[in-house]
């Protein structure tokens, strides 16, 4: 009989504890999680990149819905626990769910500290703690305006940088004389302030907030308008973010009679005063200490998991932690204790021109503190010396120059890493040492950063040790490791497709000239390779905002027909699901006669191709097709082409579903959408598969119980059978999943990369997770697709038949008549 484990809170610490528990004792517990936030476990450290736009929420999810399902975990999202009944061994959530437990983990985390000044509860005053805060800030930033961040610590500076990146005018108020005074000494704090100011963020130190001033309530609900400092100075503000610290959330535990001081008191085995109740994360207190950085929280998670699995050995011992700031372009590192004292000596290196500052604090020939600014590559090496208490007397003279000098070797960039012992910690977030990484590279023949991340988690959280992990790869693999394996888009840039896509979003680039300026294109106006790609990326990223650039489109997409070898064009009207009618066929026949179109052919996608149309005739041909109710079949587009169907239950004695109807529904829903490369679909009414759906980009096979959705097939230069994405029961679900799939492809695919190549690159499982298993993401992707369709479903033929782009279809001048006149 399994025991029942209930977890209160679904942050990073309990997430890691469960991961560990399922690793060592997968069948020991039935697990139920109550999460006050309405979502899955995500990487809270990475909220700052979400705020600055460098990452999306999807990027920072640690455990998607599928992870919980696979482990049989019941996850209540949006269920705040309001009572622990220790006598009955139950917990009760706000919506009224009651769960009983044999063992309980309390991981309620912490609350942001709010300055108790007048006006702290005005609208427009936020804290910086979870995704809801980030969303609130992004919403506020949308209208621009002025933001004041109170608190110049780690979180406050990251929030300030993010808001600045979102286009706000930002001021940071800090109570102390220098920024991040708990992690940095005065000199480094000053350098940091200069770097922050260089980004256009104003910094006011020694700023004591007196009150927040609200708008006149006679003009509607009062909003924050300004921050008033001690002394009367007012700083105008449309948004105020308080990032002045956190305090453990202990109210729930306290009410249940569990011993608490500042935090919930636990022993080194993570047990509270009630032996069946564990606590871990930011809500706990051990030996008078509370914790906010992720590394010790993960250690706690490991200890708690071991005890739950029956191993009474492991104990949590707080150790020194290192800090890094996650603001792009600012490098700083600090660890240990660096206050001045009589029995301490220091070694300082400054290079003003390069903005480098390094300070080592020594006591009894041991390193006890490190502060580095501007150049932090040796951080891990120093941190290792510090944690181990290594006697540094023999290398003291050159210590500050780092491991490459200490080893006496040349300035090889990998020397610093080579000098590290196997037990040196590389990834602080996930507690991964060098030996574990080198071991994994050997054991599993890893060759890339992503391989190492997948196998060891090193650099998979905040990413600040990415450089070190890459150096280890380089060290192990030599020339076989090529970190710059990113292929540039073309000769106009050194950036790869994925970088460009990311930067378009992060820097809100909304036109080709703006993009080329911001990303330092090497040519004045790009080339025939990059311009169509950029046009697509901008169009798919900013639906409704970006103005399509016809001159950056290949001729077929520019004039909405397919150029042929002799300079004439072919015209393919849409035939929804391959269905046509006497009326349509009669109109087509008349058009062929009227314009003397030389060839008429049935295509592989179940429609009719009119070949050899003169360019100047195109608008008139389209006008006649429109009159008969036909629109462009987009046979020229990097977009939705055809949805091929069989006759299904309409006629076929084997048909299991209305495959024709479903195909038409899909085509009517998806026509007009632009994609990285062409998309062809098929719907077969039974597994006999007459519509050949299993070699399409997306294919549906109808079965008695519903619909099997397939994707990533190919029948071109490569021939490939589709992969099964999954089974759904209803047509509505088919539509939602396919829209989500195509939208994910639109967002991740590289220009001209067909679905099967994209799927191979990012992985079938990851796609399935996004578009099928995780209902929240699936819905969000679907909704983004629907939004973009609002701007895409306009028949380009009708527009041109009515005169748009008329210059495309007429010569500039006709001098044949001029000569005749002469």
């Amino acid at each position, binding site marked *: 009989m399994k025991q029942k484990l209930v977890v209160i809170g679904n942050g990073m610490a309990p997430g890691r504890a469960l991961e560990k528990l399922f690793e060592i004792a997968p069948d020991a517990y039935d697990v139920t999680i109550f999460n006050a936030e309405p979502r899955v476990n995500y990487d809270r450290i990475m909220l700052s990149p979400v705020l600055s736009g460098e990452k999306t929420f999807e990027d920072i999810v640690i455990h998607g819905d599928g992870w919980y399902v696979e482990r049989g975990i019941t996850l209540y999202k949006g269920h705040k626990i309001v009572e622990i009944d220790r006598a009955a061994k139950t917990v009760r959530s706000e919506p009224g769910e009651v769960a009983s437990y044999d063992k309980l983990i309390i991981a309620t985390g912490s609350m942001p500290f709010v300055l108790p000044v007048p006006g702290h509860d005005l609208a427009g005053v936020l804290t910086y703690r979870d995704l809801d805060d980030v969303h609130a800030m992004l919403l506020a930033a949308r209208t621009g305006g002025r933001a004041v961040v109170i608190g110049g610590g780690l979180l406050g500076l990251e929030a300030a940088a993010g808001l600045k990146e979102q286009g706000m005018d930002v001021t940071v108020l800090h109570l102390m004389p220098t920024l991040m005074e708990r992690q940095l000494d005065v000199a480094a704090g000053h350098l940091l302030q200069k770097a922050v100011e260089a980004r256009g963020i104003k910094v006011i130190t020694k700023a004591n907030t007196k009150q927040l001033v609200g708008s006149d309530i006679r003009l509607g609900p009062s909003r924050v308008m300004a921050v008033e400092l001690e002394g009367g100075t007012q700083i105008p503000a449309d948004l105020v973010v308080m990032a002045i610290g956190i305090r453990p959330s202990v109210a729930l535990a306290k009410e249940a009679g569990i011993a608490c001081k500042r935090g919930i008191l636990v022993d080194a085995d993570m047990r509270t005063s009630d032996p069946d109740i564990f606590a871990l994360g930011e809500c706990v207190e051990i030996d008078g200490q509370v914790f906010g950085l992720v590394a010790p929280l993960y250690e706690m998670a490991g200890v708690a998991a071991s005890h739950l699995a029956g191993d009474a050995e492991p104990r949590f011992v707080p150790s020194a932690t290192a800090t890094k700031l996650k603001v792009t372009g600012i490098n700083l590192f600090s660890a240990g204790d660096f206050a001045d004292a009589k029995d301490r000596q220091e070694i300082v290196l400054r290079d003003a021109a390069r903005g480098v500052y390094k300070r080592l604090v020594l006591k009894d020939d041991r390193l006890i503190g490190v502060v580095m600014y501007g150049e932090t590559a040796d951080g891990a090496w120093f941190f290792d010396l510090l944690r181990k208490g290594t006697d540094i007397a023999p290398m003291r003279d050159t210590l500050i120059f780092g491991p490459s000098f200490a080893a006496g070797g040349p300035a090889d960039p990998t020397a610093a890493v080579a000098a590290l012992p196997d037990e040196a910690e590389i990834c602080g977030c996930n507690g991964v040492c060098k030996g574990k990484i080198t071991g994994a590279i050997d054991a599993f023949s890893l060759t890339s950063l992503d391989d190492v991340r997948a196998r060891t988690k090193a650099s998979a959280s905040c990413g600040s040790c990415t450089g070190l992990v890459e150096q280890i790869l380089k060290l192990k693999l030599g020339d076989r490791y090529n970190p710059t394996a990113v292929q540039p888009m073309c000769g106009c840039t050194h950036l790869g497709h994925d970088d460009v896509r990311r930067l378009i979003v992060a820097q809100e680039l909304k036109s080709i000239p703006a993009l080329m300026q911001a990303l330092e294109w090497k*040519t004045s106006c790009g080339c*025939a390779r990059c311009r169509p790609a950029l046009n697509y990326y901008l169009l798919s990223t900013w639906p409704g905002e970006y103005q399509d650039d016809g001159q*950056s489109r290949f001729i077929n997409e520019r004039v909405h027909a397919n150029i042929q070898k002799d*300079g004439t064009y072919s015209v393919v009207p849409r035939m929804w699901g391959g269905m046509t009618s006497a009326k349509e066929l009669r109109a087509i026949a008349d058009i062929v006669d009227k314009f003397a179109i030389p060839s008429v052919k049935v295509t592989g996608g179940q429609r009719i191709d009119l070949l050899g149309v003169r360019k100047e005739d195109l608008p008139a041909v389209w006008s006649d097709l429109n009159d008969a109710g036909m629109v462009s079949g987009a046979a020229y587009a990097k977009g939705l082409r055809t949805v091929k169907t069989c006759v299904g239950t309409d006629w076929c004695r084997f048909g299991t579903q209305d495959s024709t109807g479903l195909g038409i529904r899909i085509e009517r829903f998806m026509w007009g959408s632009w994609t990285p490369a062409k998309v062809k679909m098929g719907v077969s009414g039974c597994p006999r598969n007459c519509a050949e759906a299993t070699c399409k980009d997306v294919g549906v096979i109808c079965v008695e119980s519903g619909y099997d959705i397939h994707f990533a097939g190919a029948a071109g230069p490569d021939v490939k059978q589709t992969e099964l994405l999954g089974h759904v029961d209803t047509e509505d679900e088919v539509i939602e999943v396919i829209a989500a799939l195509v939208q994910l492809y639109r967002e991740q695919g590289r220009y001209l990369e067909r679905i099967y190549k994209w799927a191979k690159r990012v992985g079938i499982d990851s796609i399935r997770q996004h578009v099928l298993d995780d209902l929240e993401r699936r819905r969000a992707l679907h909704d983004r697709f629907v939004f973009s369709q609002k701007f895409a479903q306009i028949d380009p033929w009708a527009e041109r038949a009515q005169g748009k782009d008329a210059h495309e279809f007429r*010569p500039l*001048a006709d001098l044949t008549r001029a000569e005749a006149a002469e």
Partner: protein
Amino acid sequence: MTLMEKAWIDIGALDDIPRLGARVVKTPLGCLAVFRAENDEVFALDDRCPHKNGPLSQGIVHGRTVTCPLHNWVISLESGKAQGSDEGQVRTFGIRVDSGRILIDADALFARPD
């Protein structure tokens, strides 16, 4: 004939051609492609790629080059020469812009060898 000597023929307004685009001019001896570069320079070339006669006027214009829509040959708008490892050349014609009007060298136009 004397009227045409040293003459420039007005073939249209600069704004009739989209920037980084091209238009066709029909002549008795075949079509010309008239290009407008990013900086409003104009160029006139035979509208036939030296490779397989692709209509250069339908290509993507970038810098002072155009990429042929049929097989992606890149042709210099100044010299008419194929770029990179491809070999071939298209004929170019004298052309200029005056007060927003595009003028083409009539002598060259009607003295076409063929």
